């Protein structure tokens, strides 16, 4: 059974939710947020889609393999750490710097962000894998 209200609302809100989650991810280093929170946020929004539509539809819209997403997330997180090792720092060493970019002004780029993206991907992958598996398992 499909609820019309839910359908319409979801269509609108999903974009906001996902963008909000990216926003949380990016500002995590300086304000509340971060990879994990953002990841959960994104997952919950996609769960909303699952709740609204059926699994087949979601699969059609998002042909993503969650295990691969997890692997990718772990790859980012670990790869960032290994990068340090290659350059002669201990495993998982982070660094950051401020860059002057025309028009935008000074922004901070930290390797921690790469790590956070890894966290984000893993969290999204794992949460959705869990929920979709149970959903499918019936």
């Amino acid at each position, binding site marked *: 059974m499909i609820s019309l209200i839910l359908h319409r609302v979801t269509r609108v809100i999903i974009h906001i939710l996902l963008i909000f989650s990216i926003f949380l991810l990016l500002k995590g280093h300086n*304000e509340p947020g971060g990879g994990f929170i953002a990841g959960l946020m994104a997952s919950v929004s996609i769960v909303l889609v699952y709740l609204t539509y059926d699994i087949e539809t979601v699969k059609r819209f998002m042909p993503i393999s969650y295990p691969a997403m997890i692997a990718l997330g772990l790859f980012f997180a670990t790869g960032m750490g290994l990068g340090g090792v290659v350059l002669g720092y201990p495993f998982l060493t982070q660094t950051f710097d401020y860059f002057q970019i025309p028009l935008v002004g000074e922004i901070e780029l930290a390797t921690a962000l790469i790590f956070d993206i890894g966290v984000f991907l893993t969290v999204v992958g794992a949460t959705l894998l869990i929920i979709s*598996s149970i959903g499918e398992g019936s």
Partner: protein
Amino acid sequence: MIGLLAIIIGFLVGTGTYLILKKTAFKVALGLVLYGQAANLLIITMGGVKLGEPPIILREAGISYSDPLVQALILTAIVIGFGVTSYLLVLVYRAYQAHDSDSVDLFEEVDDK
């Protein structure tokens, strides 16, 4: 305040204990979730109660912040707890499927062929 928190922790643990002593896997899982929340609350109390601003640096002098370390620890603990709980829940559901029972007790000859 600390008294309140300690009592809440006590209630979480007590209720959790009451639940894990039940026979159905579902209740035990609920109890364990409560236990996890008690642990989180306990850790944050150990960082001190009401000591200052949220640990987000304001770059002003003379501000005291609450303990950020415990918060980071709890974050990690929450995530881990979440992972394990979700796995446990699925296990409960699969175990039910396999044996048509929600009981946590093992059956007599579970392991002997």
